[in-house]
């Protein structure tokens, strides 16, 4: 989607009338991430969109107290078996369920290497939401270590940093793995893999230091703010991403694009600034009306 620009739309009252401004927003922690400060992400959403935010513990730990095995089975069933084919529903095998059970028991563990179908995974999460909070009045954004992907028109799955839906998921591993690193990184990696028989990841990364977000990167919180904003604006306006590469709602396919949008620019394009201001106003008015 890099370089793709969505035509600007008139943001009159007609558009905002269809928006779903949530009365509350819940962010869920990812205990596997050592550098993600979710309170700062929450503060950003409050500042930018005027939303009422609450930070809760890990989504699955919070809502999956009963029948963990059934949940582990449901999660395992969303695994992508072949990234070059559309999703195939296959009964998960015993060991896959056991693996998910172990992950549920140890939420601080981070095990990338498995790709899950994003929308099916969200469906599993949606079923866990408390009934009272299962409406568009409550925005749920879960931070997760699992890598979610979506099947695209080019006939293959792509890993995603964020999958917007209900709830939305920002993947802390996806932020590292989904946007491509500099092309030269892959060339060096391939050369060293051939010469050494293994990839000395740290040595390969060294010349490109700073050019991509790594696991436990200190810049993760700042990047996560942008993805949380993408999820929130999608929830409210149903508009996916922005075509302006300097806007935080730009969905970069390269790490360099992500860094430009989330860290170097760190702001919104003029159009989305207006959207954010309008959301902020609506949220404020709603809270005021509630008070009275």
């Amino acid at each position, binding site marked *: 989607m890099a370089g793709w620009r969505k035509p600007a739309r008139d943001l009159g009252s007609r558009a905002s009338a269809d928006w779903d401004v949530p009365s509350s927003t819940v962010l869920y922690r990812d205990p596997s991430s050592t550098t993600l400060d979710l309170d700062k992400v929450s503060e950003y959403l409050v500042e930018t969109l005027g939303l009422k935010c609450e930070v809760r513990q890990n989504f699955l730990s919070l809502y999956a107290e009963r029948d963990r095995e059934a949940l582990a089975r449901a999660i395992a069933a969303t*695994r992508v*078996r072949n*990234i070059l084919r559309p999703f195939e529903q*296959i009964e998960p*095998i*015993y*060991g*896959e369920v*056991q*693996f998910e059970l*172990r*992950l549920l028991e140890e939420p601080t*563990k*981070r*095990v*990338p*290497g*498995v790709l899950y179908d994003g929308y099916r995974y969200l469906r599993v999460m949606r079923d866990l939401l408390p009934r009272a909070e299962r409406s568009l009045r409550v925005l749920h954004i879960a931070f997760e270590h699992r890598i979610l992907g979506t099947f695209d028109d080019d006939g293959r799955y792509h890993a995603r940093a964020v999958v917007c839906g209900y709830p939305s998921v920002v993947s802390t*591993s996806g932020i590292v*793995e989904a946007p491509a690193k500099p092309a030269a990184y892959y060339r060096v990696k391939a050369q060293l*893999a*051939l010469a*050494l*028989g*293994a*990839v*000395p*990841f*740290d*040595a390969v990364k060294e010349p490109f230091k700073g050019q991509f977000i790594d696991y436990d990167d200190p810049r993760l919180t700042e990047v996560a703010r942008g993805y949380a904003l993408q999820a929130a604006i999608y929830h409210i306006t149903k508009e996916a991403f922005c075509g302006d590469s300097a806007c935080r709602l730009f969905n970069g396919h390269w790490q360099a694009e992500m860094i430009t949008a989330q860290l170097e620019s760190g702001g919104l394009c003029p159009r989305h600034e207006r959207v954010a201001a309008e959301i902020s106003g609506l949220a404020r008015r709603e809270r005021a009306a509630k008070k009275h």
Partner: protein
Amino acid sequence: MPIFGEASEAEVTRAILAGFTKDLGEYASTEVIIVGGGPSGLTAARELALNGVRNVVIERNNYIGGGFWIGGYLMNTVTLRSPAQKYLDEIGCPYKKYSENLYVTPGPHACSKLIAAAMDAGAKIQNMTSFEDIVLREKNRVAGVVINWTPVQALPHEITCVDPIALECELVIDATGHDAYVIQALEKRGLAKRIGEGGMWIEKSEDAVVEHTGIAYPGVVVAGMSVCSTYGLPRMGPTFGAMLLSGKRAAEVALKELGRTPKKKR
């Protein structure tokens, strides 16, 4: 004065036979059978033996060690990412730091140390022996393996109509590499399935292999590269850290399954 003492041909034959028969008699019924004598199988064998678990490694080749003799592209330097080098410390194998988190060691040294370490701990090895099938018991739980001499498989059936034999055990560890032969045998009966290996695409594949090591079917633990093809995980290239740690994890799972308490860290 001759250098060596006298022993007749018949005595040599009896010695071979006695040693082999004693071993085979012992592991005809044992606690754990490890199919595959590569790095993960040998590590599992060593860890189990150190914890007092009787086990035997079944290896189809004459040589033990699988791919651990050589690294990528037939070059005999093998690489391990941290923390797998700590296992080399445990078995007394020297290594060098190549870069942050990456260590190198000569394949022949590491492999021979690992074989010796497994056998020193008390593991038995039955080489030139191919896994043919599984033994099933109540509720289709795996309770042993069917084996035959490897050369039998290489000859035409008309000449070598040699029936296999079966060994019984409480647990089988499938450490047969990419083929996952034990899981394949279950798959043929419709009892299990393999997903097949995925593409080699990210940094953390090794973690995924270790984390997926465990019971794949009642009575069967998968370890090493068998884990990749069983669960469709990304291949990781010829780096061996995950093989050693997966073998260690397989032993831990087996101990738990056997209801044994792991002995304290040596």
